[in-house]
């Protein structure tokens, strides 16, 4: 079953008196398979938010259809199996972390001991157990994103929609959130995420789709898309000084062309996180 | 846009159907004499737009209280006409308030009248007395209007009786008779204090109706359902009148005291 399926999904916004209509999304045919992590990319105004809102029933479609696990999106039942983390959420500043989760849990008709257990579980999962009794007004951006993830997971949905989940979060927090997403994938959940941070999308997503001006212009598996099939990269170790010339010669003899020879690079992010890990005082922020 | 029109209809439609209910509420309010006088344009001119708005918003009592407290400062500055104007205004705003009519007439007939009589600006004593009596007459007329507004409670009838007894008795021959009449009207109400009954009897006697006074005192004595009655006073009056009227022994309540 597809977690999300849209057919010719179209949205036109009326721009007010006699200013015509804005075509925010044009005939989108999207299929997100169960158990995959799908990245929805695109510049601002490309229709990403519109797509999410249409799927969640927050706005009504102009044409076409959308389903979540084969339930039409305009029915309230479709939201039983989806959890949503919006962009830049603030939540209720005056509730504590635990109270926030309790609120969302009750909205999903959870109660009593089951609710309390779930709250403890999720706070543990997102690493906020120590801050459970602090008001959200005192949370950092990273903590807000994490409590946001927790509320999205309250009713154990099969599908998660995440809008810019790591925006404004520091590298450690980002890494944690991405690890979380991978863990959710291992649990069999489906994730649709929108992000501008392309390096992070590359790390985590199985498939991506690129929207521009309301249309899907590119879609496919990440690895296939970003790998250059025409070229091969060998990573070699313990090669003596004169070995390099001999390898290059061998390639030329085989009919290939040496395009580049350089030392492989780690990522700046790995370097940063390793440095922090090695600092004996510990890793992390004053939480 | 269509939704907004629909919503507007949803609001206006049933509202039109509620019109009879609104009329019924307004009729009941009128019948129960709520809300005082309607805030017509004349009233708005007298008290100003801001105050008028406060009245309409339901702060009639507060506005009246402010005017009432202000009248007290006029009294302290001996600006009696201003004080009088405020008193009139207050009773215009809350004509159902016993308090304002009662205390208002008291100010006029007792305080202001006294102040007018003893005013050093008076050229002669006679002029002073004339002013005093004018204020007392003004008070009486004011209180009369009060009674017309609140005919269903004992308080203002009693106040009128007291006014006649205390003030008009000094210069009008009919005063005690009128006092008795008003005390009598006050007594028609079940919550009238017992002291009014005793005053009524006294007033009857002062008006020259000794027999009627005796009959009333006797009735009071025989009515044992009044635990708070001043029995010693009643007993004293019955005895006294029995002696003065030379009531025959077999009709007396108390046997005559032997010399």
């Amino acid at each position, binding site marked *: 079953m597809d977690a999300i399926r849209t057919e010719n999904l179209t949205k036109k916004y009326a721009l007010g008196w006699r200013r015509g209509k804005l075509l925010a999304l044009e005939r989108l045919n999207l299929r997100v398979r169960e158990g995959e992590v799908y990245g929805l990319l695109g510049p601002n105004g490309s229709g990403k938010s519109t797509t999410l*809102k249409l799927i*969640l029933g*927050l*706005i*009504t479609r102009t044409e076409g259809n959308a389903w979540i696990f084969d339930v039409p999106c305009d029915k*309230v*039942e479709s*939201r*039983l199996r989806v*959890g*949503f983390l*919006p*962009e830049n*959420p*603030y*939540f*209720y500043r*005056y*509730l504590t972390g635990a109270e926030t989760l309790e*609120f969302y849990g*009750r*909205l999903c*008709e959870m109660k009593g001991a089951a609710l309390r257990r779930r709250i403890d579980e999720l706070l543990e999962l997102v690493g906020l157990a120590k801050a459970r009794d602090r008001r959200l007004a005192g949370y950092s951006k990273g903590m807000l994103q994490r409590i946001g993830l927790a*509320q999205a997971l309250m009713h154990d949905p099969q599908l998660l929609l995440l809008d810019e989940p790591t925006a404004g979060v520091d590298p450690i927090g980002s890494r944690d959130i991405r690890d979380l997403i991978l863990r959710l994938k291992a649990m069999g959940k489906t994730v649709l995420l929108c992000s501008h941070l392309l390096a992070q999308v590359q790390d985590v997503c199985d498939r991506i789709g690129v929207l521009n001006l309301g249309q899907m212009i590119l879609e496919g598996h990440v690895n296939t898309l970003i790998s250059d099939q025409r070229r091969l990269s060998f990573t070699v170790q313990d090669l003596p000084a004169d070995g390099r010339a001999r390898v290059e010669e061998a390639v030329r003899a085989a009919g290939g062309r040496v395009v580049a020879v350089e030392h492989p690079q780690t990522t700046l992010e790995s370097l940063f996180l390793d440095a922090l890990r090695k600092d004996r005082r510990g890793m992390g922020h004053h939480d | 846009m269509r*939704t*907004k029109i*629909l919503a*507007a209809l*949803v*609001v*206006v439609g049933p509202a*039109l159907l*509620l*019109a009879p*209910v*609104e009329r*019924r509420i*307004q009729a*009941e309010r009128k019948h*129960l*004499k*709520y*809300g*005082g006088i*309607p*805030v*017509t344009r004349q009233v708005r001119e007298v008290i100003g737009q801001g105050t008028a708005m406060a009245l309409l918003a*339901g*702060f009639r*009592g*507060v506005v*009246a209280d402010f005017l*009432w407290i202000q009248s007290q400062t006029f009294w302290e500055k001996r600006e009696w006409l201003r004080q009088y104007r405020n008193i009139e205004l207050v009773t215009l705003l*809350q004509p*159902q308030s*016993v*308090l304002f009519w009662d205390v208002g007439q008291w100010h006029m007939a007792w305080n202001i009248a006294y102040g007018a009589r003893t005013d050093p600006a008076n050229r002669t004593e006679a002029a002073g007395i004339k002013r005093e009596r004018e204020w007392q007459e003004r008070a009486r007329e004011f209180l009369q209007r009060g009674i017309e507004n609140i005919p269903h409670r004992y308080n203002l009838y009693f106040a009128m009786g007291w006014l006649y007894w205390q003030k008009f008795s000094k210069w009008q021959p009919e005063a005690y008779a009128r006092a008795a009449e008003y005390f009598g009207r006050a007594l028609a109400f079940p919550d009238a204090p017992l*002291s009014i009954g005793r005053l009524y009897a006294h007033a009857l006697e002062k008006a020259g109706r000794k027999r009627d006074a005796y009959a009333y005192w006797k009735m009071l004595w025989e009515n044992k359902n009044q635990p*708070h009655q*001043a029995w010693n006073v009643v007993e004293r009056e019955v005895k006294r009148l029995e002696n003065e009227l030379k009531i025959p022994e077999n009709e007396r309540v108390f046997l005559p005291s032997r010399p």
Partner: protein
Amino acid sequence: MTERVGFSMGRVGTIAVNTFTESVRQKVYNILLIFALVAIASASFFAQFSFSEQLKFVKDFCLGALSVFGALIAIVGTAQMLPAELENRTLYTILAKPVRRFEFVLGKYLGSVLLICVSLLIMAVMFGGVLWFKEHKLVADALAGATGVPADELPQTIRQIRAEAFDSDLVKGALLIFVKLGLLAAVTLLVSTFSTSMVFNVAVTLMVFVAGHLRGPAAEMWAHRPVALALLAAVPDLGAFNVADDIIIGNVIPWRHVGLVAGYGLVRIVILVWAAHLIFSRREI
């Protein structure tokens, strides 16, 4: 195969309690401190007046303040509810759950009503406390001979002080104030479903407040203009809820009339909440 999600009063209650908690923690209650000051002040001055006058002042000023502060809490509290939810993005997270839009609107409204109710109760308790102290003081003064009332009249005077201080009819006045505030909150709710500017919401409600009180004079002015009268009919007759003044001066108010006015208010509220739901359920967020 998929379960049906029915209307849940539990969800409404959750939203209502959450709305209430947020408002309380936002120090809405600082306003109530000002009320306390007004109440105490009204009872502390004016010693040169008779006990009847003093009690009237306390009751008028306290009920007036209760009305004003209650309206502030009702209108401003409700006006910022939906704009705040949008700004904090909490609206998205709530509606992304299996929550019906009607449950949300109703929950928000009931949260507002809860806020008004608790505020009124607190102010009423403070008011009662002030009256109690005032009554004690007045009785003590009377017993000490300060009022010049003769001894045999004292029990009656004291009974009168007590009766005027603790007039149970004041409850009826407070009840109608509560319904009126609920009505104002419903107006604000309706406006906030299509406008996200808090200032606009408050302004429109205040206009309705003024119009609602001007129905009497306006009706006489516009008797020959049916369109204007029809528009006026949309605005509730707020003057009908002002009975506190009359109760304080001793005018009798039967429960039947209270019931009629309260019922009228409730019908108006239902209409307004229904209209709010209509707009909100079709709203694109």
